[in-house]
């Protein structure tokens, strides 16, 4: 293959990114929003969302596809926050407390998720998706029926008036933006949450380091070929579970960072869209089911959220209805996920067909050789 830059190939590999670039580039001027506003929003949303998106990288590395089961981690984080609010633990210690409460829950849920996905090889993504729904039911059971009853709650302000169950909206004033405001730097009028970005930077370093460890190498080997890895002595099932556990824990931390920025939490809905957003972001950033890098995360978060910021306004300007803009962005986000998945599966299938044709060719050659020898 030539090393020359191949424009067609580059375009084919990044078609989702290009579509989103064109789309947002067209919608941004139409929206009439000021550059300052957009930049501030983007910086805020990078801090708010990228940690969550990072949680998807390890399972992709291990060949398990996009981990829709990350919503389990998000639920663990929410349970942590419920306790932090209930005990009125304020500021950064409150966030740390929420993480510490969420940690064992996330590890446990991640382990379950890993076990389940090990039984559903080849269809990890759809299984993870359904597992998220299933766990949503259990989460609702715990939070709506057990908390305040079987699990004691101190604060009357967060429980329902019937005596058990947590209210629909949880006020996170006690920890609101405590991480973002811990170290806020103003650059040209834009407030930069330096502490949050610092944590995200540390996570990037962790991922770079992790790839080089023995475990990271094992994961990449499994992502390439499970059978070969198994015969090379890598504990395939266990390593896959570890990948999911780490992903779930990262998702838990990510959800806590997300919610501290939002400042309140829809107790029963906050995690429902988490997986959708993270997956859409990483795919819009140019990742595929088998390859996800750190730049993919940042490009994806910026592009996806740029669209989320400008589309309603662009819709209002063009059609006189912000609602249409909102439907547009939803349709494009779902469409981007579908398109990225389709392109990847298509390429994989073409690879299989070429391999099959190649096998046939070489088999025929083999026969020819044999005949010649006779």
């Amino acid at each position: 293959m030539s090393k020359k830059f191949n424009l067609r190939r580059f375009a084919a590999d990044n078609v989702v990114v290009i579509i989103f670039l064109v789309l947002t580039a067209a919608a941004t001027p139409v929206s009439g929003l000021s550059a300052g506003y957009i930049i501030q929003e983007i910086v805020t949303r990078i801090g708010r969302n990228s940690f969550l998106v990072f949680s998807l990288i390890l399972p992709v590395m291990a060949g398990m596809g996009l981990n829709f089961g990350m919503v389990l981690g998000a639920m663990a984080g929410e349970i942590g926050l419920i306790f932090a609010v209930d005990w009125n633990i304020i500021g950064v210690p409150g966030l740390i407390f929420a993480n510490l409460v969420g940690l064992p829950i996330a590890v446990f849920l991640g382990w379950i998720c890993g076990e389940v996905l090990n039984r559903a090889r080849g269809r990890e993504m759809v299984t993870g998706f359904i597992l998220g729904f299933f766990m949503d039911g259990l989460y609702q059971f715990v939070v709506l029926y057990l908390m305040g009853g079987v699990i004691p709650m101190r604060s009357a302000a967060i429980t329902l008036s019937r005596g058990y169950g947590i209210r629909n909206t949880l006020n996170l004033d006690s920890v609101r933006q405590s991480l973002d405001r811990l170290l806020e730097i103003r650059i040209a009028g834009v407030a930069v949450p330096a502490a949050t970005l610092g944590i995200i930077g540390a996570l990037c370093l962790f991922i770079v380091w992790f790839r080089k460890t023995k475990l990271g190498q094992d994961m990449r080997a499994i992502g390439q070929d499970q059978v070969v890895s198994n015969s090379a002595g890598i504990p395939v099932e266990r390593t896959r579970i570890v990948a999911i556990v780490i992903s779930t824990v990262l998702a838990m931390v990510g959800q806590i960072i997300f919610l501290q920025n939002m400042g309140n939490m829809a107790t029963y809905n906050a995690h429902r869209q988490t997986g959708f957003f993270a997956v859409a972001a990483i795919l819009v950033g140019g990742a595929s089911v088998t390859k996800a890098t750190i730049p993919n995360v940042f490009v994806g978060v910026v592009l996806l959220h740029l669209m989320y910021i400008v589309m309603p306004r662009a819709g209002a300007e063009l059609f006189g209805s912000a609602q249409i803009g909102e439907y547009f962005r939803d349709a494009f986000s779902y469409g981007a996920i579908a398109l990225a998945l389709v392109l990847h599966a298509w390429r994989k299938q073409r690879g299989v067909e070429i391999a099959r044709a190649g096998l046939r060719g070489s088999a025929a050659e083999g026969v020819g050789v044999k005949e010649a020898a006779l």
Partner: protein
Amino acid sequence: MSDASRIKSKAVAGRRAAFRAALAAAYLAAAAWAFVGGRGHTILLDNKSAEDGSYAAFRTVEASVNGGEVQQLSMRERVKAVAVGQRLRVKASANGRTFEGEARIPFGEDIILVSLPKLAAGIEPFWEPFRSEPAPRPAAEDEAPPSLEAAPSIGG
């Protein structure tokens, strides 16, 4: 397995156990630190005279808790402040004089009542735990959680 490798694996196992114990200890220590040091307490600053006349309220007094926002109180007024952690430092100023008091909030108390006249008069303790009747649960808009079929709106 050779003896040497067995000894080695034993050493590894020992190291691993020690590492795990240290991790568990660190986890518990961090949890305890966050739990104790991050606890928010409601501080009620109070400006009332004593019933027996042993101390008298100020006409107006300014006070702050743990270097927080300075609040102004008129006579017989009571305001709320927040103290994070167990340390409580109250600073008050009235009629050109300033008073300071320090205390440790006992573990498990949520609300502390601080009497500013007591602080000024040098009466120790100038604070007391405040235990109110459990407030009646406010009747809330308790809608049922939406179902999976009712699609949640997507928002960033």
